[in-house]
């Protein structure tokens, strides 16, 4: 063996590494490119946290004054209660998820369990096009199609009465159509591809043996889906819903265009309301850098940042639990 190595020195067999590689330059360069994302995120967090806390540090507002329902930036002593925006974001997101989750999980199940190849090859590209449709286009569709439709169809009070029992449900009708429901509907379509593709991956990750095992025991396909597939993929579906939630809560322009932008808590899904993102979008251009009003908008962006980072951590926790079990 020793003679063999000496007869064929390996250094001659090997292409000579260039000067750059001897300095380990390629590895360093690609590392910097990847690590640039850490720098971007760190800077983003520092800047937003800094700007977002000015309202407390510089303008002397207390935390209690911020988590209040009264928003009146033009008063003599301006009030910056951002509660209506936080709650607005929560309810419009919840509405969107309520509509979108069953539909998206249905589409994911369809693609993973039911659809023949030809149907899959149409629906999957269609979903990719959904992802690509810009937010302003969804908003414009909302304004020109959905909002007038809601206003025309349900313009009177919406009342459900039963014979004997009387009125069981009533709410005011749409005034203009710009409303909580319009916002949630637009968002539900925007998050549909996200929830669908992540749940689809979760369903695909369930081992084929579980399916065949269940079917061999004589269950129908639907029993297999309900009792085997969905429980097995539950953490993946949960991840999908959290990712959809993040996208819905952070979406700005489409929501702003259809939601009506009244800084109050909505009393019914037919009423106009507002969200963190839509108020920031609307007011940022009308305020001056450094004034309390703008500082309040930065505080709202900080809330958005906290929501998104929380969801990243949440997704990690869900996934870790799945790996563990």
């Amino acid at each position: 063996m020793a003679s063999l190595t000496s007869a064929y020195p390996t250094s001659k067999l090997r292409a000579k590494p260039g000067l750059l590689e001897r300095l380990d330059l390629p590895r360093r360069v690609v590392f910097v490119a990847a690590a640039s994302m850490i720098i971007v995120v760190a800077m983003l967090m520092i800047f937003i946290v800094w700007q977002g806390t000015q309202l407390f540090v510089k303008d002397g507002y207390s935390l209690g004054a911020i988590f209040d329902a009264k928003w009146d930036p033009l008063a003599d002593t301006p009030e910056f209660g951002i509660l209506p925006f936080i709650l607005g974001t929560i309810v419009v997101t919840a509405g969107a998820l309520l509509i979108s989750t069953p539909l998206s999980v249905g589409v994911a199940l369809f693609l993973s369990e039911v659809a023949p190849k030809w149907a899959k090859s149409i629906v999957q590209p269609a979903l990719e096009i959904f992802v690509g449709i810009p937010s302003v286009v969804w908003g414009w569709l909302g304004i020109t199609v959905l909002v007038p439709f809601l206003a025309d169809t349900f313009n009177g009070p919406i009342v459900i009465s039963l014979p004997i029992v009387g009125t069981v449900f009533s709410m005011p009708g749409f005034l203009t159509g710009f409303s909580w429901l319009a916002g949630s509907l637009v968002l539900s379509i925007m998050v549909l591809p996200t929830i669908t593709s992540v749940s689809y991956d979760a369903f695909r990750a369930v081992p084929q043996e579980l399916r065949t095992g269940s079917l061999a025991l004589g269950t129908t396909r639907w029993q297999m889906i309900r009792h085997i597939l969905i429980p097995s993929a539950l953490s993946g579906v949960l991840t999908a819903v959290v990712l959809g939630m993040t996208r819905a809560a952070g979406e700005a322009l489409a929501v702003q265009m259809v939601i009506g932008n009244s800084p109050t808590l909505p009393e019914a899904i037919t009423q106009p309301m507002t969200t963190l993102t839509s108020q920031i979008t609307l007011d940022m251009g009308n305020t001056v850098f450094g004034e309390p009003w703008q500082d309040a908008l930065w505080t709202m962006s900080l809330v958005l940042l906290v929501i998104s980072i929380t969801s990243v951590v949440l997704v990690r926790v869900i996934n870790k639990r799945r790996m563990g079990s």
Partner: protein
Amino acid sequence: MTANAGSIGRSSGAKPSLNGKASRGSILADRAATVVLWGTGALVLLILGSIILHFAMAAWGVVSLSFILDNPSQTTLGGIMPVLWNSIYMLALTMLIAVPVGLLGGIYMAEYAGDNVVTGAIRFAEESISSVPSIVVGLFGLILFVDDFHWGFTALAGALALTFFNLPLMTRLSEQALRAVPQDERSASLALGATKWQTIRHVVVPLAIPGLITGVILTAGRVFGEAAVLLFTAGIGTPPHYNFANLDITNPASPWSPFRPATTLSVYIYKLNSEGLGAFKNQIVDGSAAILISMVLIFNLGARFVGRVLTRRLTAA
């Protein structure tokens, strides 16, 4: 044997059974579920179909060559040339920065990254930027470039903010494309004595090209339609009449300069809508939205087509 099994099953009643014969109710439920699941798939196509049809009809009589090539006008329908130009310009500028950085970052993540704290931090950063709302990324650009650097609203500020926003996507798609290259290719190259970097440059990256190009096109599609990031970085306004003969890129009056405000097509739609005035507002927005959707379709089909053609050519060669 089978008949026997059947009779045993029948006697066991409606309980979940091993008999291979599901109860009547569960078969009905199964049929209903199948119909509903087909319905969800059909609904997706129905929604997409009606959106495309809606915009095709709305754009009829609006979108024409002069709509694409003319300047905006106060009194007539006019055109959207300057904002369309800005969209293309911003796309090019963003991709010029995002593609190399994203590709190199993808190479690190696919070929070099070990299972350690730094890799974990990069992954966390990647996920974080992906989930931070686009409006917040735009606001970050506003503080950093517009205020702190005193650039004002410029195309460069917008392109950098867009790069920040899309870097995770570009990096992840590159990483996936590179990881899809079979390990044997690397081993063969290394066994022939090539160094790691030579292997990456001459073997892995060329083989990953179809996937890489698909990634670039998908990222481009997202960049092209993005508006929230640009509102407070590249600016929102009515663009002036551009003089394309002015090639001095340091002159903010030149349409080629990165140091000028650049309202893109998406931002223009938002602006027209929020101003809510103008006799031709609805037609202009419908036409612009139709053009945006067509671009999305082109980007998507393009990514598919290019990926398929390149894969065929590379695997045949």
